[in-house]
């Protein structure tokens, strides 16, 4: 089994330090998202809340393999990957709670947050659209003579059906760009099951059609994810062209917090796909003697406390004020089109 092979600690992608870091970030993401869910239920968040529960292993394995200078365009369920890449609980809370101090200044929010100047690209909603953007960013880096960097992005099983996915991945392949594309096949796109989404054996079968390397991975196993994605990122960094990873897993929550997941197939839920990657990772951490159950418990408490405190602080921060807002869609004010008859 891949996961047994990966448990070999001589594996360069799998050592105590990395694994523990990954596990702790998964835990942090999970706790933060639980807080977001409770804030949502309390009515403190007005937009939607879309969580990554069950997808933390796959997500963190990508984020943790990226470095400063890389490009990362995460998707809906990438709270763990985001935190691994350097996003903070503070900015997460700020965007969800609409603080003016958040990176998006209230103009966009939640899963749409990012800091493009730092290589952290905020998704637009239209699925698939970030792939070509990351490809373009990598092209720019190549123009500037940078090597050894990668650009990474995520797509869901549903998102693979978009024309943008196809065009973006193909362009990256033609240009042999160091793109890492993680496909999180959580078996549903909102309520739509895989069999209404695609008819191929596995989404991994798409890779050959682009001339792109591919790895299939058990998305519930942090071991597997770290191993496969570590290798893929390494190959991309080494100039071997775009890399695709298809992670099989299940989200353990509804599409968003408004969704009761009534469409979930019980059989899938009970299958190995339905296992909680965080519980599995914790078990591994403990069984390998990298931390004790108590330590894990302790971290959980610490993170929860930290998140509660941050949320309290953010809830007192200023919210955007339409009077102060500059209402300007262009950076160059000379070209603003605001005739008198538009003005309020």
């Amino acid at each position: 089994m891949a996961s047994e092979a990966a448990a070999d600690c001589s594996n360069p992608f799998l050592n105590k330090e990395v694994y523990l870091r990954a596990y702790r970030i998964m835990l942090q993401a999970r706790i933060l998202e639980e807080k977001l869910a409770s804030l949502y239920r309390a009515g403190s968040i007005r937009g939607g809340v879309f969580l990554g529960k069950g997808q933390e292993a796959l997500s963190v394995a990508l984020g943790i393999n990226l470095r400063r200078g890389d490009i990362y365009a995460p998707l809906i369920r990438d709270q763990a990957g985001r935190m691994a890449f350097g996003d903070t609980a503070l900015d997460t809370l700020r965007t969800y709670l609409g603080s003016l101090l958040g990176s998006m200044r209230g103009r966009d929010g939640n899963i749409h947050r990012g800091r493009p100047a730092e290589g952290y690209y905020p998704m637009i909603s239209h699925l698939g659209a970030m792939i070509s953007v990351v490809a373009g960013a990598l092209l720019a880096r190549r123009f500037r003579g940078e090597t050894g960097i990668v650009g990474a992005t995520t797509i869901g099983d549903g998102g693979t059906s978009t024309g943008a996915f196809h065009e973006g991945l193909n362009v990256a392949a033609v240009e042999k760009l160091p793109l890492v594309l993680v496909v999180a096949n959580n078996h549903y796109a909102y309520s739509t099951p895989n069999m209404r989404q695609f008819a191929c054996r596995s989404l991994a079968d798409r890779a050959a059609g682009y001339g792109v390397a591919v790895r299939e991975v058990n998305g519930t196993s942090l071991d597997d994810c770290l191993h496969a994605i570590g290798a893929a990122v390494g190959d991309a960094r080494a100039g071997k062209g775009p890399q695709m990873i298809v992670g099989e897993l299940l989200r353990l929550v509804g599409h968003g917090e408004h969704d009761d997941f009534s469409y979930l197939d019980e059989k899938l839920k009970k299958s190995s796909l339905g296992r909680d990657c965080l519980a599995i990772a914790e078990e591994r951490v403990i069984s390998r003697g990298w931390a004790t159950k108590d330590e894990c418990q302790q971290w959980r408490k610490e993170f929860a406390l930290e998140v509660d405190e941050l949320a309290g602080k953010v809830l007192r921060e200023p919210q955007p004020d339409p009077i102060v807002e500059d209402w300007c869609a262009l950076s160059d004010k000379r070209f603003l089109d605001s005739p008198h008859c538009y003005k309020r």
Partner: protein
Amino acid sequence: MSVTYLEAIRAAQEKALREDPRVFIYGQDVGEFGGAFKATKNLAKLFPGRVFDSPISEDAIVGVAVGAAIEGMRPIVEMQYADFSTCGFNQIVNQAATLFYRTGVKCPIVIRMPSGGTAGAGPFHSQSMEAIYAHYPGLIIMTPGTVEDAYSMLLEAVQIEDPVLFFEHKFLYYHLKAPALPTEALPAGKARIARAGRDATIVTYSAMLHESLAAAEILLEDGYELEVLDLRTVKPLDTDSILASVARTGRLLVVSEAWPWGGVAAEVIARVASEGLELLDAPPARINALDTPIPYHPNLWAAHRPTAATIAQAARKLLEL
């Protein structure tokens, strides 16, 4: 008993499915699940095989509808949000909209477009794209603002043999209610006087109808009687009714939630200026969303779109000219 705007849309689809075997519904999550907003709730069960999920492929969804229409079906497509129709844009404006003119073969498809802003929905789940599509020849653009119209216009849309884009407003889904479904209706293409008045005409449609009616209430306190005209369809645009109203009031304010440049408001004002200049006692005015992406934060969003308060303010200014 009362019916919401959303229920009316669901009921119209049920009726269409029941009465016409050529009707089917296609879109993301419209099957078993009943759609992101539940506009097709239970329909998959009631009409097995005729209400089914698509992949996330807006371009193909519209293409499929066009092909099916050519072969005699009457597809209703649900875009999950109007905003995502940008990904099916080409098939809408170049395939569906041109088919009849080019070939003489009709293209009876309906595309439902859940539109407009709600608090916290942000730049990609709030757009009002009616002006974009109205610019293209070959499309009928419906923008119902009442429960009754949501029902009767959707039924009419299914019967029309040309492509209809049906812009239903998400803000109205749950809040807007009527005592019952209508049994008769104005035909598409005709505007309706939602409120009669003599001092100025507000021309509007969709959710802004209600903000405008509320603004009219506000101005009533100042003794002004505003006429509010609900366009119902923005293409065709009922120029005659607009001119008739302006002839009565002499003043025109157009209210739209879409962006200003080239929007419904611009088109209405251009028509009145060209065809009814002498009717105007004051310069026509418009109030639109501001010319930026639609902000996510509710504070900003509330200031970005027109509201009863800002409409009342604009109307007052107009009345004082």
